[in-house]
């Protein structure tokens, strides 16, 4: 756990993905997540996987980095796969007690696993290659039309960014607290339910206390700098679409279109 990069972390760089407009990346990410969800045949899976490989290449993100991001989800992914594989009725392959591994289950489990992995990967790519400031700018710009309906867009965007910004910080802090409590003999992941619960409390209480302290400090710091949300805020760097944004959007649309066509016309 120690010494890896946490989910939601931004890694500075100058790759193609880093230089894309944040709005483009948000749209592409949403489009590709949708494509992952709607893909329903091997050709579709292959196409989306290919796009993911291409995106990793364009963002200069290595396999190991992506895997270290996905590691926290490993248990959930595995569990969902096993449950699907064993609990789906169909042609039996392997019987384990009252449960049976079925062909349909294996296919369904595999599909779900593939989808979750791709969704997490595309999401990770977005936060890996977009700084929190640019991500807010993008969100704010996308949500701007909602301001007419009375939605406080700027505040919402700031809130989302702050939440994203603090995911890695809190994970890091949690790891540090876990290690500190290990120094006092706390045992994690072993022992009976009471021991486990007590160990968990010994991490959660300091973690929350720290989060509140941090939130308070941040609020004070923002107020001292006279932060005001709202329509009149200007940015140091205005967002501007470039040719590469058009290319990225076109590619995403093409992939999404292909997946939709396969699903509904063939």
């Amino acid at each position, binding site marked *: 756990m*120690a010494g890896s990069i946490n989910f939601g972390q931004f890694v500075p760089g100058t790759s193609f993905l880093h230089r894309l407009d944040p709005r483009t990346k948000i749209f592409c990410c949403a489009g590709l997540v949708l494509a992952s969800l709607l893909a329903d045949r091997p050709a579709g899976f292959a196409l989306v996987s290919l796009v993911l490989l291409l995106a990793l290449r364009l963002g200069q993100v290595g396999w190991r980095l992506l895997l270290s991001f996905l590691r926290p989800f490993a248990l959930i992914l595995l569990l969902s796969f096993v449950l699907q594989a064993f609990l789906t009725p169909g042609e039996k392959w392997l019987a384990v007690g009252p449960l049976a591994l079925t062909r349909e289950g294996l296919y369904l489990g595999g599909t779900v696993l593939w989808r979750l992995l791709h969704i997490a990967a595309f999401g990770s790519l977005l936060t890996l290659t977009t700084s929190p400031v640019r991500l807010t700018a993008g969100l704010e710009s996308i949500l701007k039309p909602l301001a007419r309906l009375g939605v406080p867009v700027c505040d919402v965007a700031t809130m989302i960014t702050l939440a994203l910004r603090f995911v890695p910080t809190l994970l890091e802090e949690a790891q540090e607290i876990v290690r500190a409590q290990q120094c006092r*003999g706390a045992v994690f992941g072993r022992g009976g339910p009471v021991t486990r619960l007590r160990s968990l409390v010994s991490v959660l209480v300091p973690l929350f206390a720290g989060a509140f302290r941090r939130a308070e400090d941040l609020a004070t710091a923002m107020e001292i700098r006279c932060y005001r949300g709202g329509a009149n805020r200007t940015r140091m760097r205005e967002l501007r679409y470039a040719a590469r944004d058009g290319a990225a959007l076109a590619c995403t649309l093409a992939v999404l279109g292909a997946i939709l066509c396969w699903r509904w016309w063939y």
Partner: protein
Amino acid sequence: MILVEDLTYWYAPGTPLAVKALDGVSFSLAEGKFMVLAGGTGSGKTTLAQHLNGLLLPSSGRVQVGGRDTREEAFRRQLWRTVGLLWQYPERQFFEETVYREVAFALRNLGADEEYIRERVAWALRAVGLNPAEVLDLSPFALSGGMRRRVALASVLVYRPRVLVLDEPTAGLDPASREHILGLLKKLQEEEGHTVILITHRMEEAARLADWVVVLSRGRVCLQGTPREVFQNPAALKEAGLHLPFPCRLMHRLREEGLAAGTAVLTLEEAEAELERLRTRGRQH
């Protein structure tokens, strides 16, 4: 007791954020000695501390405690009882409702019986200069900063680790609390034979307490030796972001002015004696 050999540690290896936090660090420390680990911010002091009780494992090189390698799985699980590590700002890890339960946490994890725990908690609180009767039932969050730090120290002392590693235990404390904690550490080392490793960037503390000083700079050991030896090299210390203790600085300054002052002084008393010597010698000429 503690042997560190060619220890190198990478944070986030294989990623764009990889950092070499420790680079070929070597030192050894005999049982019952007092070592000061000094260095500026970001020099790798805290990372090194976490290697000493097996929280982090070397990327290369090795760390031995009491002759056993911290890589040994079975040993590592027991290591926290031998090497007590007091974290930086340890009071941030508090979570129990009372001081008693907070200090007792480690012993509870060992499965000790309640009577023994009560005895040890009272001893540990007294050792850090708190009155058990007054603080046992208070919430640790209701205490002042200095008292919280003492409670945190008590929660490590309570299980009597033979080696104490303390990461800036006096950061942010008032002078009286600082004095008390440092005095206590020296007493534990001299009277109870604990091995103490104190992480600090205050060289006055090193001068007063240490048998051995290791100075880190950007993950490397840039100086090590007895305090007197280390303070002979002000240039290297400055390079590491540290400065000499006042008495020693004074002597180096006098030397720059052309006086034959001896620079191997650690305390104000020694500085006074040296000045006296210079004065009488000056009169003879």
